[in-house]
């Protein structure tokens, strides 16, 4: 263990006190309190299971993902060096709602580490990562892990249907017949009407993401689809068809964050967290200012870009939350990669395709092809950016010369959103 880390451990042990970890950065013009030392934070390890229908249960999947994360740390590392653990999960199916995190950390040799489950629907582990980042950034922890876990495909179909859509407004949306395909279908219909877009724009997204997912050994759906097939899919919620919807997946993901003064002892190739942002909105669509501009994404993106000093045009890779194809189209606009109303054109011109232009969108295959194990998705996106920036993904889908990557993880119909920006250098 490095000397800085040892000192840190001694300090923690002696005082038994944690530094204040609440970091108000919604308005980043706020200065930190006097005496507050904020440190740079890097991701030093990351791993995940294959997403899909997994033979392993929750414990086994978490063990596998955390083991891969440990293995990816270049130098000596073990989980007894972890100060805090944040694990995202919706506890889908209700099999282990209470103390999910303690059960998971138990199976990766982290008994004794302060741990908790973070629940923010599909953005659970995006927010778990943000909380872990805050802990390290504030100095309260030297090393933290953030991860996610979801087991969706071992439920009987009836129970599964009851759990799908539990993150919408049960009282007013679900009682009006909405699950998430239908919620996003309402957004798509309105977008088509207001911006002269058509379903073809969504088909391009589906085809692109399947193309990317083909070579991702961790993807749920490793298969290409043709435009014709995607355009003529069976309707799920008009205008969205089967090929507009991500699959329901099992999976786990785990990333390891470290403070700058211990990073060098752990890795030669850190991936720095250059910016973090998060936002929220009304839960139900009918309460929102707009259903085609998603304020939670805009707010989260603004914070993350301001914190990093970067602009959208600097980003080389974006892992965006394409639970439905329309969600990617709107994200590309709301993250600032194109102007409002130009998401359809961006899609038609295949500008997000691997190495076609400056920006590659969802080189992992996105939720559409890589899969969507709800609570594991957010840190799964970070695993992808970590590996892309270190040049460690399959060569067929490696983004060339990437310096900066962005993750965009949303909960439900974007009632919550976490955006993170990563780079190979501290900026």
């Amino acid at each position, binding site marked *: 263990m490095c000397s800085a880390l040892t000192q840190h451990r001694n300090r923690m042990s002696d005082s038994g006190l944690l530094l204040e970890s609440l970091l108000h950065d919604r308005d980043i013009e706020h200065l930190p309190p006097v005496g507050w030392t904020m440190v740079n934070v890097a991701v030093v390890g990351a791993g995940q299971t294959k997403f899909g229908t997994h033979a392993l249960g929750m414990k086994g999947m978490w063990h596998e993902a955390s083991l891969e994360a440990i293995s990816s740390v270049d130098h000596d590392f073990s989980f007894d060096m972890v100060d805090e653990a944040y694990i995202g999960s919706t506890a889908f199916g*209700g099999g282990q709602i209470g103390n999910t995190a303690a059960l998971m950390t138990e199976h990766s040799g982290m008994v004794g580490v302060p741990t908790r489950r973070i629940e923010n629907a599909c953005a659970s582990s995006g927010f778990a990562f943000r909380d872990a980042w805050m802990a390290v950034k504030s100095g309260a922890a030297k090393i933290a892990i953030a991860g996610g876990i979801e087991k969706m495909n071992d439920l009987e179909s009836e129970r599964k249907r009851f*759990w*799908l859509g539990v993150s919408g407004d049960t009282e007013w949306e679900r009682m*009006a017949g909405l699950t998430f395909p*239908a919620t996003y279908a309402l957004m798509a219909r309105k977008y088509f009407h207001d911006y002269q877009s058509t379903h073809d724009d969504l088909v391009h997204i589906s085809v692109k993401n399947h193309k990317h997912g083909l070579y991702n050994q961790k993807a749920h759906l490793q298969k290409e689809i043709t435009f014709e097939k995607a355009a003529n899919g069976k309707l799920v919620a008009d205008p969205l068809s089967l090929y507009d919807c991500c699959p329901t997946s099992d999976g786990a993901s785990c990333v390891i964050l470290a403070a700058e003064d211990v990073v060098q002892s752990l890795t030669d190739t850190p991936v720095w967290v250059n910016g973090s942002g998060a936002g929220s909105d009304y839960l139900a669509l009918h309460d929102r200012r707009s*259903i085609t501009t998603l304020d939670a994404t805009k707010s989260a993106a603004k914070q993350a870009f301001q914190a990093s000093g970067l602009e959208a045009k600097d980003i080389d890779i974006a892992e965006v939350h394409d639970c439905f194809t329309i969600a990617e189209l709107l994200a590309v606009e709301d993250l600032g990669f194109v102007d409002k109303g130009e998401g359809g054109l961006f899609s038609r011109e295949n500008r997000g395709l691997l190495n076609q232009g400056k920006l590659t969108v969802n080189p992992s295959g996105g939720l559409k092809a890589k899969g969507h194990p709800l609570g594991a998705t957010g840190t799964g996106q970070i695993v992808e950016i970590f590996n892309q920036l270190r040049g460690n993904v399959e060569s067929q889908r490696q983004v060339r010369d990437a310096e900066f990557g962005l993750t965009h993880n949303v909960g439900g119909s974007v009632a919550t959103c976490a955006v993170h920006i990563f780079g190979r250098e501290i900026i």
Partner: protein
Amino acid sequence: MSGKFGIAFQGHLVDHFDNGFVIYSKHFENNTPVFGPDVDFTCLVASGLHYLKAKNLLIHTDIEGIDTDVISSMGFNFASSPQLADYIINTTMDACVSFSPSGETFQPSSPGSQANIELLNEIQQAWEKELASVSQGAFVSREQYIRSLDQRINLKAQKEDNSSIWPMNYHQNQSETTQLEPNGKIISWTKTTAAGSPSEFAFRSPILGGLTTVLIEFEKGTIGTFLIVDDHQHPVSINDEVELVIRRIYGQDGWIRYGLKAIPLKE
């Protein structure tokens, strides 16, 4: 007998007489009304009370299975005996309800459209399965449902300077309330297949060929989410005008949730 017959009202038919009226389903089999796919006596009684355009009346009924919480939420109280009631609500056949101060009953005079009995029977069986189902995930409890009835049935909203907030928000001023008019225009819509519907609707959705959900913009811009009534099978479009009426929403844990559904005014 003189009167007005076959008046279309909230997706039903009304015959109006000097001494009362009868409200009945527009679906008929052999000259007898039959319940539509999401209508029962509670829905007919609620629509009849809307037709009265009165509030705070004492009513009396012996019709079994009426959801008294829904009717009470509309501002009507149940009299303990017919003699004390302003209106007596009676039925002599399925899908037909008479309203009169004296308790007189009326027969429907205007045969509506021929019902698809096979479909309605299938729907009825689906309702029975739905009612017997128990939630294994998200659900709305009876207490939660009753707490929201004033908003759900009467569109009670919070009043703002130039708009209204519906459903109500605890963060906003609760003291000034208003009631939205039950009509608006569609600003977006989707039709879900069985795969896209919540589990609560899983039995009926395939029989109906899917369910249509719309976002409605009320006057002054307030927006709400509603199902289209189950017997409206035509496509809808953005900007279509709709009227909101009381229908069955779904059944679970042995009881029916009622609420407002939209009827497009353009066929």
